[in-house]
């Protein structure tokens, strides 16, 4: 018998399928229990770190731009050069990969090959690729440039392929019907439709590459990351703070500039 209280309105459950709902709760609870028993936290070490935290944040509040200025400047300029070269080279190389990975343009074997290559380029984190390239090309900016080129091809190539697969096929058909050769079909039927989007994404990638150039230096691939890790290794937190502030402000400016540029392009 339904009583008055049972007839009160309740919001419907967010996951309509009852067994999926229960399953999710069981999995979440089981994982929480499992995590509780396997994550061990060293309380003594944290207490010890708390003392260091004061030191660290003290350094953070007193950024020192001057003591290591020549190193910081060199690192930033190198990061900038790496970013520019890698983005340009990656953009140029991403075009053949992207066109090859488009189902509506490439024959099946080319499609499979290009898709596979792009997947491999994207699977490993930049830092892992950088470790490999540092071993291959030696320490320094060149290994960093190669790392960023690979990451850029993976990123832009995939997005270019997705954009090309969504184009309006009519211009391409018209060009084919008029007997245009392959290169003209691509240049006039495909690229005008995808270029605004790809140029916007390239600007975005410029931003990402600068960010990444700050971390691949940690494993020896040049740039501001190399300066940063050295400052860390020497416990010069004042310099660390200065470097991080410079990175954040440069990224902030880059975001503003690229936003403005993108609006003009689109």
């Amino acid at each position, binding site marked *: 018998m339904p009583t008055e209280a049972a007839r009160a309105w309740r919001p419907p459950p967010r996951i309509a399928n009852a067994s999926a709902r229960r399953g999710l709760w069981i999995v979440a609870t089981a994982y929480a229990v499992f995590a509780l028993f396997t994550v061990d936290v060293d309380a003594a070490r*944290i207490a010890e770190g708390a003392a260091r935290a004061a030191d660290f944040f003290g350094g953070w509040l007193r950024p020192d731009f001057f003591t290591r200025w020549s190193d910081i400047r060199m690192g930033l300029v190198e990061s900038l050069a790496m970013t*520019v070269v890698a983005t340009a080279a990656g953009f140029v190389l991403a075009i053949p990969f992207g066109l090859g990975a488009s189902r509506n343009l490439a024959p099946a074997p080319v499609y499979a090959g290009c898709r596979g290559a792009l997947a491999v380029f994207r699977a490993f984190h930049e*830092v892992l690729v950088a470790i490999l390239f540092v*071993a291959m090309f030696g320490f*320094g900016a*060149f290994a960093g440039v190669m790392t960023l080129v690979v990451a850029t091809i993976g990123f832009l190539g995939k997005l270019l392929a997705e954009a090309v697969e969504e184009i309006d096929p009519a211009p391409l058909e018209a060009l084919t019907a008029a007997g245009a050769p392959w290169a003209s079909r691509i240049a006039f039927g495909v690229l005008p439709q995808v270029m605004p989007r790809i140029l916007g994404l390239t600007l975005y990638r410029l931003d990402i590459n600068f960010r990444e150039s700050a971390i691949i230096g940690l494993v020896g691939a040049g740039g501001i990351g190399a300066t940063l890790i050295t400052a860390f290794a020497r416990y010069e937190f004042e310099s660390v703070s200065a470097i991080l502030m410079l990175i954040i402000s440069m990224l902030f400016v880059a975001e503003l500039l690229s936003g403005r540029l993108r609006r003009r392009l689109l």
Partner: protein
Amino acid sequence: MPANARAGDRQWDWHTPAQRRLRLFGTLATTVFLAWAWTHISSRTTWGFVRDAGVQLQDMGLRMFPPEGSYLSALSRPLVDTLHIATLGTVLGVLIAIPLAFLAARTTTPSERVLRPLALLALVTSRSVNSIIWALILVVLVGPGLLAGILAIALRSVGFVGKLVYEAIEEAPELPVTALRTTGAGRAQSLAFGLVPNVLPVMAGVSVYRWEINIREATILGIVGAGGLGMALQSSIDSLAWSRVSVILGVILGTVVVAEWVSARVRKGLA
């Protein structure tokens, strides 16, 4: 349409003269900048080492193969640690990000003058510092290990999740909230029933997507001492055990691929 066509001289042209000048200038500036950047890199490269790269690659390949299969069993603990770092870090990050998103969204923020800029600043800072740099800082503070990794992933995720969620909140329709207010519902009630149901799918989708990215990032945090597979990788590289490095790289690749598959499945279910 190009405007430079004259009667009798009807040649089609892609750009106007002003556009052409701008493009020429842009091309020149880009070329000069690129040339400078390349000479800068080139002057700091030891080309002998670069020419040698093929030999190095071959050498590395020979050392990596055959992979030391028995090392696989020693990797179960680092693998579990990596999953913990990514999962717990994502959960913690989302828990911090959601209140910040409500403070940052123009439609829900309690104070547009003070709290909104502060929340936005927190989100930008979180996003600008890579998780590996957060890890570097946290290893100093809480010691090497799992906790540093979890916190690093959480701190980096806050900005990502927060930004996407606050944009979703601003884009959500305001009518349901207004309707609830007119029936006499309180502020919290009207948000809980008028807004949250609309942004919840975005929250869930963004969190799962961030988890997938975090799996990838968690595999390398160990390089700076924050636990997981990266720690095993660093120690194998340091001891020149390349036949173990190939095993670890294989495990990382497998984990990333599985995580991507899980994430794609879950997001498809949510959509």
